[in-house]
């Protein structure tokens, strides 16, 4: 059984107990002040935005919100902790219960897998610590990260595999990003994960001895670390050994883990209420204000997209993970009235070009109105698919409207029959008596044999819809 403890840095302008700015990649120890450094006499003052964000996270995950935000001190000595205690929440976490909806992989890529709720134990708020950089002969401490607001999101031990843990993290991460709570960039340490893992024989209902696995610093390390630990524990039991309650450090580069400390060496954190911080009452109107700001989450959105837009699962499953992309899709679909075509363009063409150019969706010059116009041009037959692809590339580069590009580049299909079309069609039918015979015998697809020559004669600019109509009219007369 697997339970995850996920630390999520909250995206606030200033730190959780002082006005100094938060940030990543700044010169060491520049985002500090007497409070961050724990200088004599410095006192913490709570950042309300951090509390707001944690309440919002709780609302998004269906948690019960504590009526009072109470702070405790967690006492332990370590050089990354400026005060040698961390301001945290012990017996009254800001959020209790709740759950994260996860989606397991389907039987095939285009089939939706099972959805499940992973129960949460609690979410509490605390301050991040500094970062140690170990050199050959010394260790340096950077306190820029210290005091960044941090949520610890603790799940119940209810997951069964590395795959479920992966699905849990994916969903949790998306939820945090959706809510504007965190950017969850694991490379910047904005999301960090520890796993509690125990195994038990089939049929046993009590949990086995748990091992805590630390430093799972990328989503793939989480999967690899958990899979490795499960295998290690099975190995220990099969050799007749017993699992020791301990904390192990997973090394993602070697794929191995080693013991950090056993239960006997566990800290006594000597928690007690922080006398420097007054408890803060959270009333119903405070919650309501934040609830009004809660967005629709990825999976409810997925269900709505499938039902309302009737798009395939493969499209929906790409569109829902990015709130901006989902909004972009909905806007485009609304403007052009062709959800699936819009979805295809976004998932295939837009994402490809964004990826190739390194742009974000927000930076893209192709706005939903542009893409909707292009979809309409294709749908009406005014522009052929191949030409539309060229128009899209040009539009991505310049930000011009597709109509203007089509006009300027001569990529527009012939708008109507100029008299030549009917002649080209007659020529094509006459040139292929075999296809004519097949069509007359009821093979509808035989009509396609005439289309190539017509398009060739039209130098590719015939309106395919009109070609089809003209051919059918002529064939009916023969």
């Amino acid at each position, binding site marked *: 059984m697997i339970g995850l403890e996920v630390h999520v840095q909250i995206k606030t302008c200033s730190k959780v107990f002082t006005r100094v700015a938060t940030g990543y990649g700044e010169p060491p120890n520049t985002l500090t002040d*007497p409070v961050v*450094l*724990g*200088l*004599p*006499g*410095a*006192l*913490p*003052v*709570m950042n309300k935005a951090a509390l707001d964000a944690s309440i919002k996270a709780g609302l998004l995950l269906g948690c019960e919100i504590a009526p009072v935000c109470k702070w405790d*001190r967690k*006492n332990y*000595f370590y*050089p990354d902790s*400026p*005060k*040698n*205690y961390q301001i945290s929440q012990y017996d009254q976490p800001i959020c209790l219960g709740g759950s994260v909806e996860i989606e397991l992989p389907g039987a095939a890529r285009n089939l939706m897998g099972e959805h499940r709720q992973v129960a949460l134990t609690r979410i509490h708020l605390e301050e991040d610590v500094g970062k140690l950089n170990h050199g050959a002969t010394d260790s340096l*401490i950077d306190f820029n990260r210290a005091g960044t607001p941090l949520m610890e999101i603790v799940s119940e031990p209810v997951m069964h595999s590395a795959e479920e843990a992966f699905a849990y993290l994916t969903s949790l991460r998306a939820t945090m990003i959706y809510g504007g709570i965190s950017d969850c960039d694991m490379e910047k340490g904005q999301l960090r994960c520890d796993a509690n893992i125990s195994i038990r024989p089939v049929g046993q209902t009590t949990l086995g001895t748990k091992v805590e696995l630390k430093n799972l610093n990328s989503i793939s390390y989480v999967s690899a670390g958990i899979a490795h630990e499960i295998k290690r524990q099975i190995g220990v039991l099969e050799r007749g050994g017993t699992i020791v309650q301990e904390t192990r450090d997973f090394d993602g580069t070697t794929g191995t883990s080693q013991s950090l400390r056993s239960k006997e060496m566990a800290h*006594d954190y*000597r*928690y*007690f209420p922080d*006398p*420097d*911080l*007054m408890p803060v009452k959270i009333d119903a109107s405070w919650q309501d204000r934040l609830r009004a700001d809660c967005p629709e989450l990825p999976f409810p959105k997925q269900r709505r997209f499938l039902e309302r837009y009737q798009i395939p699962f493969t499209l929906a499953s790409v569109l829902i993970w990015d709130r901006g992309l989902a909004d972009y899709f909905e806007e485009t679909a609304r403007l052009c009235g062709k959800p699936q075509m819009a979805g295809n363009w976004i998932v295939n063409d837009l994402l490809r070009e964004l990826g190739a150019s390194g742009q974000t969706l927000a930076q893209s010059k192709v706005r939903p109105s542009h893409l909707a116009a292009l979809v309409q041009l294709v749908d009406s037959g005014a522009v052929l698919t191949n030409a539309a692809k060229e128009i899209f590339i040009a539009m991505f580069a310049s930000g011009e409207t597709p109509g203007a590009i089509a006009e300027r580049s001569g990529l527009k299909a012939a708008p109507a029959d100029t008299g030549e079309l009917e002649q080209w069609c007659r020529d094509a039918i006459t040139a292929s008596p075999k296809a004519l015979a097949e069509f007359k015998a009821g093979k509808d697809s035989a009509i396609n044999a005439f289309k190539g020559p017509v398009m060739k004669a039209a130098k590719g600019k015939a309106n395919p819809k009109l070609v089809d109509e003209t051919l059918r009219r002529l064939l009916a007369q023969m």
Partner: protein
Amino acid sequence: MADLIYQPITQLAAALDAKQISAVELTQAVIARTKAVNGRLNAFNSFDEADALAQAGASDARRAAGQGRGALDGIPVGLKDVIAVQGQPLTASSRMLAKFVSPYDATVTQQLKRAGAVLWGRLNCDEFAMGSSTENSAFGPAVNPWDLTRVPGGSSGGSAAALAAGTTVATLGSDTGGSIRQPAAFCGLVGLKPTYGLVSRFGLVAFASSLDQIGPFARTVEDAAIVLGAIAGHDERDSTSYRATIPNYRAELGGRRGPWKLGIPKEYFAAGLDPEIGAAVERAIAFYRSQGCEVKPVSLPHTQYCLDTYYIIATAEASSNLARYDGIRYGHRAAQASDLVDLYARSRAEGFGAEVKRRIILGTYVLSSGYYDAYYLRAQKVRTLIREDFLRAYQEVDALLTPTSPIPAFKIGEKSDPLAMYLCDIYTIGVNLAGLPALSVPCGFTSGGLPIGMQLIGQPFNESGLLAIAQAYERAHDWHTRHPSL
């Protein structure tokens, strides 16, 4: 002006305004006095003459330009060496911080600077404000100007001794269990511990966060009101700071609000009270009665639990507050250490004195897993009962009158047993546990010539009332006009 060094703020401010003296002259006088007597008193951990004279010069320039900032402008004020002043040492009288210079101002420091005060001296105290005699200072004990063989009280002993000896005009101390009131009593001064939350703690080296409060030492009640007026008020950098409109304490002293109802808690006149102190306080009670005050006995039944409760809560908070002194970022670092844990252990073993270590160990113990409920949690519940005792008494009376200390200033080295030392605070710690305002005001001398103080305990945030009651006594007596011969 004769005898500049023993004048109260009110007199000096008038003289400054009348251009009879300059702030520079006044500062030069306290500098000269400090240099003359501090060798015997050891009340100052350090002082910065050039800085003080520059502040005084700036004050004179303001007054000359008609931009004086009021009664405190140009008045030398000494700070206990636990209150941060940017660019000045902040040692907490500990080896741990012997070389630490604060990069920032405490809020009270900023407030005094804004009021134009001349910050003069870093005043000796018990290490990290833990003690009742200033003998726990890493820089040697401060001594009592009234008798150089005796302690000035503690932990703010330097603040009391410096003022009593005329080396400054007012001082700030901090009071966690009596650390302003008891030294004020021992040195014949007015010492006020404000209501918890009235004065910002930002920049005060924390001992016990839920009990610590900064307050003034002054020669007179009116002086105390002036200094309190400068440092009281909400501070957004201190979450425990109270949001309230701060009255003009000095102006409110003028209002006639007596006679008052005074309560005499019987538990504060129990065995162990020095008979001369008891008699002096009885005379003060008789005085108030003679002024038409109703004086009635009251009971604070949980008084017997104050000492235990205090030493659980204060040490628990201290053990956590002092964890930051680890030799890593600042402060004393042991020269030789084999690894991280050894570095922590050696730095702290070398940096902290015996009493600080004793309290850290005690506090760590009471917070330990398995003991928390029995000690810390229980103590917090008793604390609530102690506060309720006081609030119940205030349904019948305006203020309580007690001795400040059961004994007068004792000999240096006399109380080697920590418990005997802790008992010195028996009348003052309940006030901190209940978060109430209280002051000590001189009420006589022992036959041996040692000052005696009485304590007035007021209602939450009613410092005005408390000061008025004290001033009614002060005006009818001349104890505060006597000075030690030094």
